[in-house]
């Protein structure tokens, strides 16, 4: 079970046991593109499977979950809206009272529960707590903070972390990706299998990571140069993001959204790669294990641990700001200037 999932062994082991006696509602939380919805969908498949043994290949129910048309798996998506409002929530409440079409249970999957408005989340409360015995809710959100705590309290919360890069690498090998590529993809993805898989066929993965890791030696205090670097950095991310979603079958709107999301994830990965450079610079001077094993040591030791820590923190702050949709180019320019100044 859960073979299609990269990493998350602790979570899947737990869910396999849970499936025998599932709770009413589950909330999957963790960073973007780490596989939350994948795990949730797999869990739904296991729950809906008429035979609890795993026989996915020849199981009609399982095949239909995968192809996205199981009548008792009700996915509540944004479908072009900005948020999930009271109307959608009331729909869920109403549908939840109906009996399943053909299985013993029906499963509601809300892949973007974080987009529920506060009103809508409150509408769901009573239903989440005491749904009919044949209803199971699977909510997915990036953070528990995206939902009122009263929702989290009614759900069994499954925390999912980033996937260690060796597990992503192994997963990619399983998909037939060759060794060097798998390693490169795993490093670029920043623990997000979703990003790594989207980029499997991309030829510029190595360059992407190397570019970020070369940044520290190219930084300059002059704002003009920092601005040019910022432009260059944005140029690394955008084409990669659009290629990553080019294979997926989506409508134009969905594609744009997906592309924006991937670009944001890649920018975050890139900045994190940059932050690990500085973390390594501090680590090496304290004799601690490094994350990037292929960096020129002389560069790393050229910066004081204090500055390295400060720079790493500056980068993490910049990530938060970028996620808050502030002006990206300005932020990057500012960041690069700050990184260069002693």
């Amino acid at each position, binding site marked *: 079970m859960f073979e299609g999932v990269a990493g998350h062994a602790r979570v899947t082991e737990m869910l396999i046991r849970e499936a025998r006696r599932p709770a009413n509602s589950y909330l999957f939380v963790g*960073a973007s593109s780490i596989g939350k919805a994948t795990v949730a969908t797999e869990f739904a498949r296991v729950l809906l499977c008429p035979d609890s043994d795993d026989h996915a290949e020849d199981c009609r129910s399982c095949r239909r979950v995968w192809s996205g048309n199981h009548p008792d798996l009700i996915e509540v998506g944004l479908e072009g809206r900005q948020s999930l409002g009271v109307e959608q929530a009331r729909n869920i409440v109403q549908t939840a009272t109906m009996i399943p079409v053909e299985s013993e249970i029906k499963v509601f999957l809300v892949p973007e529960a974080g987009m529920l408005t506060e009103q809508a989340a*409150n509408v769901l*409360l009573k239903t989440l707590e005491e749904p009919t*015995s044949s209803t199971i809710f699977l909510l997915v959100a990036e953070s528990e903070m995206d939902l009122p705590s009263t929702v989290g309290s009614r759900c069994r919360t499954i*925390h999912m972390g980033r996937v260690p890069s060796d597990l992503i690498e192994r997963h990619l090998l399983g998909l037939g990706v060759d060794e060097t590529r798998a390693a490169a993809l795993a490093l670029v993805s920043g623990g997000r299998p979703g990003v790594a898989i989207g980029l499997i066929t991309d030829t510029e993965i190595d360059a992407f990571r190397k570019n970020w890791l070369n940044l520290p030696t190219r930084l300059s205090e002059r704002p003009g140069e920092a601005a040019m670097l910022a432009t260059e950095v944005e140029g690394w991310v955008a084409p990669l993001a659009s290629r990553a979603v080019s294979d997926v079958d989506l409508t134009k709107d969905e594609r744009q959204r997906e592309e924006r999301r991937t670009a944001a994830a890649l920018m975050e990965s890139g900045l994190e790669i940059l932050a690990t450079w500085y973390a390594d610079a501090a*680590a090496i*001077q304290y004799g601690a294990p490094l994350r990037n094993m292929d960096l020129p*040591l002389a560069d790393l030791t050229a910066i004081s641990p204090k500055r390295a820590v400060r720079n790493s923190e500056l980068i*993490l702050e910049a990530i938060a700001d970028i996620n808050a949709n502030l002006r990206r180019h300005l932020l990057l320019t500012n960041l690069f200037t700050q990184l260069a100044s002693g």
Partner: protein
Amino acid sequence: MAEYQALYRKYRPQTFDEVVGQSHVTTTLSREVADGHVAHAYLFAGPRGTGKTTTARILAKTLNCENRLADGSPDNDCDSCLAITEGSSFDVLELDAASHNSVDDIREMRVSVTTVASTGTGRRVFILDEAHMLSKAAGNALLKTLEEPPEHVHFVLATTEPYKLLDTVRSRTQRFDFHSVSIESLTAHLARISDIEGYKTEPAALIAVARHATGSVRDSLSLLEQVAALGDSTVDLNGVNRALGLADQEAYSALTAAIADQDAQAGLELVARLAGEGVDLRRFVAESVGFLRGVFLAHYAPNLAEVADEPEEVLEHWRKAAVRLPAGDVLRGVDLLGEALIKLREGREERLMLELAMIKLTRPETSTDAEAMLSRMDRLERKINSLSSAPLADRKPTFTDPAPQPAERAAVDPEPAPSPALDPTDTEVEDQLVAAAAPLVGEPESAPKANDVTIDMFRSVWPQLFGGLRDLLGARRWALFRETEPLDVRGSTLIVGVRHGFHLKSLEADPAAASIVATRAGDLLGGAVEVVFAPADGSVTIAGDENDVRSNRREDPEQEPERVPDQNQMDEASDDLTDPFKLIEDELGGTVVDESDGGG
């Protein structure tokens, strides 16, 4: 599968007595019912999972119960009680205020309020759950009814956020505040339910579950169920740790040691170990904050058992850590990790965040905040005190601290410094090498020292040592180590000659390399040894570069003055040790400005 009910639903209390940890509410309510003084509108406020809806349902039931018990509880056996438990009663209406929050909904309810109960004497009870979600207009529409409902009608408003209710609504109700349930009550409750469910439980595991539920009965039962599912009806600490992705107890001891010894390497190695084990790092940060809070309590609360709901072994763990960690460091830890926790909630990468917090925690000089400065001054102060109370010549242990830290121990109880006859040209290099080895010699070691290693022995095991290191060191370090040779032996310190200056620098910047070589060499020579790198040709290329060598060593630079090098350096060293200005400069990286004349 379909019949299965979550524990928190299965064991929803059906009498006032069964409600966990809210006796201040339930005794008052049952008295009111027994005396017949039931208010027409109640407001139940309190955090999630504390029993608001449950109590409201019991109240509704007992008001309608045909054979109400003397203590005001329902008998749960009459037709009315059974109907309410089933949710099929006409007289108890549970309204979800969140999805029925419009004026129209409330108007509908007002019509319903005027109808009589299905049984002649019955009461009608309206439970408005999530009452804070009523719109303003809906709240206003309710006001008159809420103030003066018909005789047989009672309202119960339940909410987690009472301040969101209109003042006018609040003032028309009798308010009961539900409290977070204490860990003892939760633990007892969990034990009771585990018995009924036939779970095999460990007391420590139940306490851990209760602690993680943060006062919510519902959360605690969810977690209990989750752990029981994971362990096939066995609930043990290991299961709790697995269900929550928690680190083992050892991790917290390692954290304490890393902070106390200011050992960034150990701290980062701890992070790497936890990440490799699949521990939920976010939880680890949260748990560490809790742990450090406990250590802080252990510092200042003599009656620790009374202020903390924890089993004795946890308290003991805190006390031990408190002996090692000064209170300032503990507070700083709480601050730094708390900050990291907030950033983790925003979705930052767990490992990176934790690594940064760990570096700042173990190396206060890397952070600029005032607490870090205070922590450094604190250490400095203790050092100066210990120095002035024990003159260098006859230092004996005078610490009040029950467990002196290794570095301090090295200072008070130095090994006799080796004083080999040296070739004058090599003196400086040798001094440094011996100085580097001295603190390590002074540290308590479990393995016996290999004191009588000779250069011949070193040379004879060299090929074996060299051959085995390739895999141990890994490709990167191996590339640096490849062109080395045995150079000399001082006591139990092996001096390895490195042929290229750059390789030498890199190896010195990477204490892990020396420790790997030392471990391997120790195995071959049958005793603990230290390894130091030096130029292979004996030339003094690093002599002028003293600071580099020092700052790159594993030992903390600020503990430098406590090292007791050989006789040649004794005079100079003693100046370092007793000169407070020099100490301040070393510790705080500042310069001492003499303002004694102009100041005032």
